């Protein structure tokens, strides 16, 4: 297993390399200049020129590229040109936030998606199945940022003006924690975090949940028709156990591979949702950095994005092996 993981990680190296090279080329060919943030009439253009030289931006592209690769290989992500802080510091703050948001969404996606998929498969062609299918499709078809705006409009704004609306269903419109978070007890802290997570994770995850439900439904239908389900029934296993024990584990197999597929999708969504909900994550960081042409930050964030996807795919494969005894990685 260890050697398998090592081999997979090794295989990922050219992939990461490719991603970074692509981003490097795109970023540096694009017009724009990181010194713009310091641009002011009283700043001598010669000083800006010097800044560019200090950052090595006057060098030919391939030299910049190799220089950057070299420092990257030594674990140095560089220094943010616009935030004046080491990029690694910035990432240390931002990555956890994105992971919390996408992690919660992922949980939500799979919990809700799988549950709905099972219900649909068990009650195939029933009214509930049809309602859920069409409902899921509607949700699946919403732009995440638009859904986010609508959620804010309703659950973080309109309901705050209703007296009868229960207090705990009035959600904050932005942020990760309340400003007085530090004064809370442990339970309140957790609650506060969850309250802040509700709307963004719904906006981010609900469309994927709908698609997981669709996959789960067909996967479950496929499994239910298998011979071993008949065997289980012939053994006198109650229907509930037939579904939840015998069928579920098998039906989950194709769903596990989705885990790796959804992460890039979630990260894409996170870029928008983090903007709508003022969530200080990597998505916002990279978009801001792209705007400001903060090359080191863009490169490092891209790397983390791609690396997380690689890791997620690996985890999905390992999970697959854990659930499916037929697969053994040597």
């Amino acid at each position, binding site marked *: 297993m260890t050697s398998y993981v090592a081999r997979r990680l090794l295989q990922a190296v050219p992939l990461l390399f490719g991603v970074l090279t692509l981003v490097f080329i795109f970023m540096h060919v694009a017009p724009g200049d990181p010194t713009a943030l310091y641009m002011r009439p009283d700043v001598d253009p010669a000083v800006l020129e010097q800044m560019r030289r200090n950052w090595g931006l006057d060098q030919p592209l391939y030299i910049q590229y190799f220089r950057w690769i070299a420092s990257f290989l030594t674990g140095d992500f560089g220094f943010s040109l616009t935030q004046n802080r080491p990029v690694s510091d910035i990432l240390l703050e931002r990555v956890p936030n994105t992971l919390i948001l996408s992690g919660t969404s992922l949980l939500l996606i799979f919990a809700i998606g799988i549950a709905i998929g099972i219900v649909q498969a068990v009650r195939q062609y029933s009214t509930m199945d049809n309602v859920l299918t069409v409902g899921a499709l509607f949700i699946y078809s919403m732009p995440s940022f638009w859904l986010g705006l609508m959620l804010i409009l309703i659950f973080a704004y309109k309901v705050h003006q209703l007296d009868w609306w229960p207090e705990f269903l009035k959600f904050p419109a932005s942020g990760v924690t309340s400003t007085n978070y530090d004064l809370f007890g442990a339970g309140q802290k957790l609650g506060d975090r969850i309250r802040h997570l509700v709307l963004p994770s719904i906006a981010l995850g609900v469309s994927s949940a709908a698609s997981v439900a669709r996959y789960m439904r*067909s996967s479950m239908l496929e499994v239910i028709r298998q011979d071993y389900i008949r065997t289980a029934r012939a053994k006198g296993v109650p229907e509930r156990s037939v579904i939840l024990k015998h069928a579920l584990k098998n039906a989950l197999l194709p769903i596990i591979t989705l885990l790796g597929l959804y992460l890039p999708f979630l990260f894409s969504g996170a870029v928008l949702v983090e903007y709508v909900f003022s969530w200080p994550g990597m998505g916002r960081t990279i978009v801001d950095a792209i705007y400001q042409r903060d090359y080191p930050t863009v490169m490092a964030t891209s790397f983390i994005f791609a690396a997380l996807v690689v890791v997620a795919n690996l985890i999905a494969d390992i999970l697959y092996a854990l659930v499916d005894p037929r697969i053994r990685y040597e």
Partner: protein
Amino acid sequence: MNDMPERSGEIRHRALRLLMALIPGLAHLRQGHTHAGLSLLGLALSMITVSIFANERIQATFTAGRLDYWVALLTLAVTLGLTWVVSGVSSRHRLDARVGGSQWAIAWLGFKQNRVAMLGLYLMIALYLATLLGPFLTGYEPSVIGDIAATRHLPPSVEHLMGTDKFGRDVFTRVLYGARISLSIGFIAVTISITLGTAIGAVSGYFGGAVDTVLMRLVDTLISFPRLVLLITVIALFEPSLLIVIVVLGFTLWPSTARIVRGEVLSLREREFILAARALGLNSPRIILRHIVPNVLGPVIVAATLGLGNIILIEAGLSYLGFSVPLPTPTWGNIINDGREAMLQAWWVTTFPGLAIVITVVAFNLVGDGLRDALDPRLRT
């Protein structure tokens, strides 16, 4: 002898045939094909309604000298004409009669059975019709700005079905014209990405080996990177314009198609008819084009339909970040983005284009799912 009843029967018969020729769909209805009949009838009626209500604008077509008016007029005429032609032709030779025909005929039969998919198809047709007929469906111009102070942020009413935006423009009109851009972006970008994806997937799967490895590494790279970030980076390189957005979307969305096609080709490659073609000494491009591509068309069409919905969503997201087609060209994403700051006092500006996106994407997905079921009997449950 007694030819009176026969004659009256004859007259009735003739009258009926005349009526059936005049009213599209009636023949279908009489034959019990309620569905087809009603849709033809509905289509004809709605076209006639549009002609009556847009009378002035239709006349203006001849003087306005604008392409979109001509397109709308053409659409109106062709659609109306088609309802008659289809009504006349297909009520006699119904498609169903040709069972046992090609794979496509069978797929169509399967598709027709799927009510939800048909609903999607109807929605899709309605959307495209509305888009083409745009100038006749509204009395306003999408980008003309009048007296802002008087018309700004008017709530939905009979006058303005979806209210007005911050410049006093009719949101319904803008959504209608936005459909034109959003749908064509989707259409062209999907065409590009499907063509590219099919070509690359077919080549990769057919040749295998190093070619496959290199191409699939590229696909992995593109897939493992958050798409939106990639798009933003690329679009920042150029400047946002209709062309760039289409091209960039088209050129970045092909990997998933390539993967699907490659998978299909891998399984096809070992099948007898391909082996036979190889044994016959046909050259590779010929085998790919003549034997492989037609056989992967099914999954590709499904991918295209689902991809269309996806592209509309992505375009909206790009607009939101300011990376899409520039103003004042209305796209759905643009309109939402434009109304975002006024969301608190004018919810309609963001809500309606959003709903338009949802309905469009739903329609495409319904059709896509229906096609998948129809084309791939294995998945039928």
